[in-house]
């Protein structure tokens, strides 16, 4: 009896603490019509998202997969097939979102491979957790991420980015408003310049200017470096300077981080 007990208890104690399960996957490939739509919202659960503005796209095209766990292979597959994407239109506004029933909550994960849409649409992206990459979307662009890096090239109509935790790299010819309380920010003015750049970050901030005319510089940071044709300084704390009419706002608050404003190297 004792031997049996010892032989039973010890292995159980050592092996205790694991779940035997399976993984399942259900691919998603869908296209939703966007005729007469001028603004699109994509609101997805935690997933990395890559959005590409494609002139040949006829609608909102989504490719990805639902991944799930289950006690058996069948349960895992069934779980992967349970959640779904819902697309709704209301006049010129369309929204794509995910519906995850309570029965599979915590057991599924949506992984977007790519989202394509016409480049001239306004786009709003939301996700709890995931790196976001937006390329060649030239309408107004809004990105709201709980945690994840954001990389945007485009957004001529203006860009607003907020990430709770992560870095931001942005290249735009539109006005840029960036919040990254726990990350670094790099903003590059695309085109001839002249667009406003407003940044609030918890890390280092770099701004690359296309033009140094007509600037309104208001910079906060542990260390400030400005190197343009018209302004050159190395400072700390706060730096204010207007150049010309001061119509192009370069407002940066890096908190404990460093601020660097320079001219973009010639292409």
């Amino acid at each position: 009896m004792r031997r049996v007990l010892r032989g039973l208890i010890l292995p159980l104690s050592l092996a205790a603490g694991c779940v035997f399960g399976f993984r399942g996957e259900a691919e998603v490939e869908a296209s939703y019509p966007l005729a007469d739509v001028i603004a699109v919202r994509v609101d997805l659960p935690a997933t990395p998202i890559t959005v590409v503005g494609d002139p040949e796209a006829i609608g909102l095209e989504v490719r990805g997969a639902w991944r799930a766990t289950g006690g058996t292979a069948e349960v895992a597959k069934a779980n992967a097939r349970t959640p779904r994407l819902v697309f709704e239109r209301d006049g010129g506004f369309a929204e794509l979102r995910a519906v995850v029933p309570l029965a599979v909550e915590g057991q599924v994960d949506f992984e977007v491979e790519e989202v394509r849409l016409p480049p001239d649409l306004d786009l709003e992206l939301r996700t709890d957790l995931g790196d976001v990459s937006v390329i060649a979307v030239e309408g107004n662009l809004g990105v709201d991420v709980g945690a994840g890096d954001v990389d945007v090239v485009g957004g001529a109509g203006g860009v607003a980015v907020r990430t709770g935790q992560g870095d931001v790299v942005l290249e735009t010819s539109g006005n840029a408003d960036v919040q990254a309380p726990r990350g670094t920010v790099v903003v590059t003015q695309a085109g001839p310049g002249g667009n406003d750049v407003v940044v609030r970050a918890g890390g280092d901030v770099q701004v690359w200017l296309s033009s140094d005319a007509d600037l309104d510089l208001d910079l906060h940071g542990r260390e400030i470096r400005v190197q343009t044709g018209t302004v050159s300084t190395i400072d700390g704390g706060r730096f204010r300077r207007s150049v010309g009419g001061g119509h192009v706002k370069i407002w940066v608050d890096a908190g404990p981080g460093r601020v660097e404003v320079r001219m973009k190297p010639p292409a």
Partner: protein
Amino acid sequence: MPGRSGRCGPVHARIAGDWTAGGFAAYNRRVLRCALIVALASPPAGGTAPAPAVPWGPLPGAQAPASAPVSADSTPVPADSGPGGASVDPPAPAADGGALGGPSPGVVAAVPLAPTGPAPAPATLPPRRPPPRSNWREPVAPVLSALIPGLGQIVNREHGKGAGFLLGALTLGAGAFALWRAGNGIDGAAPGEHGRTYNTEIVSAAGLGLLTGGLHLLYMAQVMDAYAGAVGKRGPRPHTRHRLSLELTRMATVGLRAGDPAAQLYADWNVGVLGQVAKRFSVGLTDLSLKFGPQRAVLQAGARLQYRFVERGRVWLSGAAGAIVQGAFASGPPPALPEGEQAPRSAVAAVVPYGQLDLRLFILDRWSINIVPRVSAPLVSARYYRDDGAIPRRAVTLELGTGLGVYF
């Protein structure tokens, strides 16, 4: 004749020898000291109530004389003083034949009392217990140990044990904190990382579970031990005939996740009440807990049958079977769906049957810590944990529980 030395000094040498003024004074001081000791050791007068009889004997180091007895106030004790009066054991004869006579304070102190009449039967009394003294360590030591592990043991003058508990708690806590910090909270943010770090995450989650489990087991044990040390109790006698037991347990396991990280520690604190309905056999309501996730609230309760098949000293080993019933309820606004589509269920229920062993170690008579290996599998629906944790339906699960129990 050689004098007998003792706390009261050489008595007979002074009695038999020459007296000087200084020697007499010293002798008197010694005798008064002896009288004071006897007076303090004697039973209280108790007003009119008769004082309990006390077997009197010679003072420490002094030999009992064989002379005629005298009373404490140098008057003969009445023969009818009775068992409740001043009746005492008859004096033993002096070994050296010395005799003390005459009413003298020193003689009073050294001579046992005896009735003058017929000697009654010797009174037998229960041994005197020391008066209860307040032990400030009883409440203080466990509280201090609860605040800082090992501090109660140090207060109990068990410095080595206290330092060991403190060092153990610090080591386990630091290890758990390091593992927790090492985990990448935004692992799932990067695309294409699924399963790539699975083994690392499994080891990390298992290590975190073991370290935190060991930490709270050590914490509970050292608080109990501080109390045991304060009351001077080292060999607990478990209450095998208890009627009721309360349990606080953390069940933990490491399971796979759908996203990244690909593995996660699932931990579940719960309470239980068991009643011993027959010898070694208990039934009760267990696994009671309430948990909250991002979009849900979960309520669970279970029933258990338990049989204790080993009782060896402070160690018990039990086997048990039971089932947990868990209800999960969606919180927040329902998901917006296109018209005509059926809304998903806002509540689901799961049944989790299980079998387990319970290895229990008693630190105090009524307090114990335990380790519980368990095998379970959620049926009907998934089993939910706090935050976004969930073990899917039909997933066989090995859990390891750690906790404490108190018996009434």
